[in-house]
C-alpha cells in the first residue's frame, strides 16, 4: 500500500494508540484475503475495508468480490457482467460526505470467463484452445469441479497482483462448504493435473484393458458410468493435460503469493456459536500453515451498552413496574407530552422497552463470552455493531469501515450513530467511542 502517512490528517488518526494498529497493518500489506463461514458479512466487510482504505490513504484499492448482494454490486458499479475492474466514482464518496484520498476499484469474479482466460493462456496453440472450449464437458467440469471456484479466485488474484495496477488487493473468498477450501485449491489443482490416475485415464482405451492391475477398477467404473462417458472424459483431459506445466507453475506461484509477508488474512465471523467455532478453527488452520492472520473481525455485534448493569436494572424496573412508573410520570408538575397522556398505553410502551432490552441483553452476554474466546486466540477482535439496516451502498460501507478503524480495536463503536459525513479522517475521529469503556472480553490494546 502506498504510504498513507503522507497525509497529515491520516497521520493524526494513527496517533490513536490502538486505532492505528489496523492502519499500520494495512500500510504494510498488499493483499488481504477475507475468509470465514457463510452468512457473516464477509463480502460487506471486505468491501467496507476497501472503501475505508480508499477514503483514508492515497493509493489504488481493488476489491475483488465473488457474489455481492445485487444492491451492493449496483452501488459499486458492478452491475454489468465480466471480470473488468471498475472505479467507484469519487463523486459517490463525495455524496457520502467523504473526500477520498485514494481510488476504490471493484471487480466481480466471473468464474467462467476466468477459466476461459486460463485456457487461452496455457494452451499450446489456438486449435487446442478452441477444442477445449468447444468440448461439451468443459463447462460442466470447470463449473462443478470441486474447488474450481476457489482455485480460480486465487488464480485471478495472482494475475491482478502480477499486473501491478493496484496498491492493495482485497479479495473475498467464495462461499464454500468448507471455509478452508481455497487454501488447498492451488495444491489440489497441481496434484490433480499431475496425478498418475489422470495419466492412466487418458491412456488409450485398449492398452488399459491389457493392464491387469487396473482391470477391476476399470470394469467397475465402466459398469457404473458407461464406456462412452469414460472416453469422453479421457478425451477432455487429454486436451487439458497439454496445459499441465503452465498449471503447475501457476499453482505454485499462487501458493507463494498466499505465504508472502505482504499477504495477510482477515477472518470474519459473527458472535454466534457455530460461526465463531468455525472462525476459531480457521484461525488455527492458518497458523498451522504458517499463514498470517492479520485481522479477526467479529461482525454484527450488539452494542455493549446492553451489558451495562445500570441499564439492565432500569430495564428490569420498566418491565416489572410499568404501571406504577407510568402513573408516576403523569404526576409531575410539568405537563407530559400529549402522546404520553394515556397511562395504560405508556405502561405498555415502558414494559415493551424494558423487555426488549432484557431480551437483547441475554444475546449480548452470550456474544461477550464468544468474543472472549476469540480474543484469547488473536489480539485483534474488531467488533462492528449490529447495524439497523442492510449495508447496500457506499455510505453504509463507509460506516462499517469507520467501525473497523475505530480507535480501541476490540471494543464496539458507540451505540448512538453519528450523523453521516462526520468521518474520523475528517478530523472527528478521536471521540468516536466517546465515554464507552472497553467491552468485556475485548483484547488489550495492541
Amino acid at each position, binding site marked *: 500500500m502506498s504510504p498513507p502517512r503522507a497525509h497529515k490528517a491520516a497521520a493524526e488518526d494513527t496517533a490513536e494508540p490502538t486505532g492505528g494498529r489496523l492502519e499500520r497493518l494495512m500500510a504494510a500489506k498488499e493483499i488481504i484475503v477475507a475468509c470465514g*463461514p*457463510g*452468512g457473516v458479512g464477509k463480502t460487506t466487510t471486505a468491501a467496507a475495508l476497501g472503501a475505508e482504505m480508499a477514503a483514508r490513504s492515497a493509493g489504488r484499492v481493488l476489491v475483488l468480490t465473488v*457474489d455481492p*448482494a445485487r*444492491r451492493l454490486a449496483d452501488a459499486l458499479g458492478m452491475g454489468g457482467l465480466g471480470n473488468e475492474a471498475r472505479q467507484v466514482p469519487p463523486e459517490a464518496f463525495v455524496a457520502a460526505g467523504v473526500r477520498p484520498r485514494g481510488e476504490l476499484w471493484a471487480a466481480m469474479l466471473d468464474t467462467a470467463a476466468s477459466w476461459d482466460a486460463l485456457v487461452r493462456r496455457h494452451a499450446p496453440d489456438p486449435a487446442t484452445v478452441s477444442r477445449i472450449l468447444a468440448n*461439451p*464437458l468443459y463447462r460442466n*467440469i470447470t463449473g*462443478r*469441479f*470441486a474447488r474450481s471456484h476457489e482455485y480460480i479466485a486465487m488464480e485471478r488474484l495472482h494475475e491482478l497482483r502480477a499486473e501491478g495496477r493496484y496498491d492493495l488487493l482485497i479479495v473475498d473468498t467464495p*462461499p464454500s*462448504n*468448507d471455509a478452508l477450501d481455497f487454501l488447498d485449491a492451488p495444491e489440489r489443482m497441481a496434484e490433480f493435473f499431475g*496425478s498418475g490416475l489422470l495419466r492412466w*485415464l487418458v491412456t488409450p482405451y485398449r492398452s488399459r484393458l491389457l493392464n491387469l492391475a487396473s482391470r*477391476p477398477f476399470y470394469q*467397475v*467404473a465402466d*459398469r457404473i*458410468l*458407461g*464406456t462412452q462417458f469414460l472416453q469422453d*472424459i479421457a478425451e477432455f483431459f487429454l486436451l487439458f493435460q497439454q496445459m499441465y506445466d503452465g498449471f503447475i507453475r501457476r499453482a505454485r506461484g499462487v501458493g507463494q503469493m498466499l505465504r508472502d509477508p505482504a499477504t495477510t488474512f482477515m477472518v470474519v465471523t*459473527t458472535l*454466534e*456459536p*457455530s*460461526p465463531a467455532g468455525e472462525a476459531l478453527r480457521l484461525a488455527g488452520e492458518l497458523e498451522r500453515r504458517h499463514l498470517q492472520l492479520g485481522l479477526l473481525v467479529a461482525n454484527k455485534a450488539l*452494542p455493549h451498552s*446492553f451489558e*451495562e448493569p*445500570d*441499564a439492565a436494572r*432500569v*430495564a428490569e424496573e*420498566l418491565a416489572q*413496574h410499568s404501571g406504577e*412508573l407510568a402513573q*408516576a*410520570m403523569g404526576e409531575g408538575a410539568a405537563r407530559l*407530552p*400529549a*402522546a*404520553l397522556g394515556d397511562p395504560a*398505553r405508556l405502561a*405498555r*410502551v415502558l414494559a*415493551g*422497552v*424494558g423487555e*426488549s*432490552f432484557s*431480551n437483547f441483553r441475554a*444475546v449480548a452476554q452470550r456474544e461477550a463470552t464468544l468474543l472472549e474466546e476469540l480474543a484469547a486466540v488473536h489480539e485483534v477482535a474488531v467488533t462492528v455493531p449490529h447495524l*439497523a*439496516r442492510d449495508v447496500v451502498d457506499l455510505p453504509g460501507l463507509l460506516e462499517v469501515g469507520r467501525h473497523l478503524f475505530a480507535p480501541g480495536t476490540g471494543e464496539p463503536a458507540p*451505540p*448512538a450513530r453519528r450523523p453521516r459525513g462526520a468521518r474520523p479522517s475528517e478530523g472527528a475521529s478521536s471521540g468516536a467511542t466517546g465515554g464507552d469503556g472497553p467491552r468485556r472480553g475485548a483484547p488489550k490494546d495492541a
Partner: protein
Amino acid sequence: MTSLLERRLLFVTGKGGVGKTTIAAALGLLAASLGKRALVCEAENRGALSTAYECGPTRFEPLKVSSGLYAMSMDTEASLREYLKLNLRLPTAGRIGPVAHAFDFVATAAPGVREILTVGKLCYEVRERHYDLVIVDAATTGHFIGELAAPVGINELVRVGAVRSQTDWMLEILSDPAQTGVCIVATPEETPVNEALELAGRLEGETGVALAAVIANRVLPELFGRSEEEAFEALAGTAGRRRLTAALAGAQGSRRDAAAVDAVIEAARLATRVRRGGAEHLARLRESVPAHVPLLYLPYLFGRSHGPRAIRQVADTLAEELGQ
C-alpha cells in the same frame, strides 16, 4: 396440496448462516413426535447436526437420537460402497478397495458423480421405505441447484451404464410433489431473501423438484403497535426521558442514572429499527412466494439459539405454524 410433513423427502436449503441445520433438526423432531419414523441427514458433514441434537458424532450409518428420530451424515465414498454392494454384488470390501482409492479422482473428474451418490442414497432410503420422512440439511442456495440437478444432468451426459438406468427411478421420486419438496429458509435480510427468491424461481424448472415451503427464520417480535410507536417517540424525546428518570428515582427512592435510561431507550430504538428493516424484506418474501406455497415464520430466539432446547422450541413453533 400435501402438507409438509406428509411428504417423504424434504430438502432444507438457504443462504449460509440462516439456520438450516436448526430447522432441519426441528422438522425431524416434530415428525418423530407426530409418530413418524424420521431420518435427518446432514449433506455436508460439519458436525452441526450432532451439535443440534447433542447426540455424539453422526456418521453414514444412521444414529438413533430418540424414539423415531435418526441422524446421519452424508459420506459419498460410503455411499459408493453401499451402492456397489447393493447393485453390482461386489462381495468383499477387498475388491472395493481400489475403487474407493480411485473414487476421489473419478468424483472430481466426472461431473455429478458425487452429487448423484448423495441424492441417490436419499432416494434409496425413500424408495425402500426405511423411514416415513427423510429430511436433508442440504447445500446452501448457491450449490443446491447443482446438487439436485445432478440426476437430470447425468441423464443427459451418460447414455449407457448402471448410473443411467438408476437415474430414472430417482427422477420419479424427486419430481413427484406429493413425495419430495424443498424448504427454503431465509432470515429477514437483503441477501438471504434475494437468494431464497432466486432459488424459488429456478427450482422447478431446473431440477423438477417442487417448492414445499418458505421459512422466514429469526423474525423479531413487534415491540409496539402503531399508537404505541407514537408514545415511544415521545418517551424517547428529551422531556420524556427526563420524566422517566425522575419517575424511576421516585419509585426506587434512589437516584437513577439518566445515562442508563438513554441506553435502554437507544436499545429499544435499535430493536425497532432492525425489525422495521426486516419487515420490508419479509414483505418482499410474501409478495413473491407463490400463493400455494406456505410461508412459515419462526421467531428470533433470545434465549439459547443452539442445542436441543432451541431445537425443541423451533419444533413447537413449526407445529403451530403448520397447524399440527
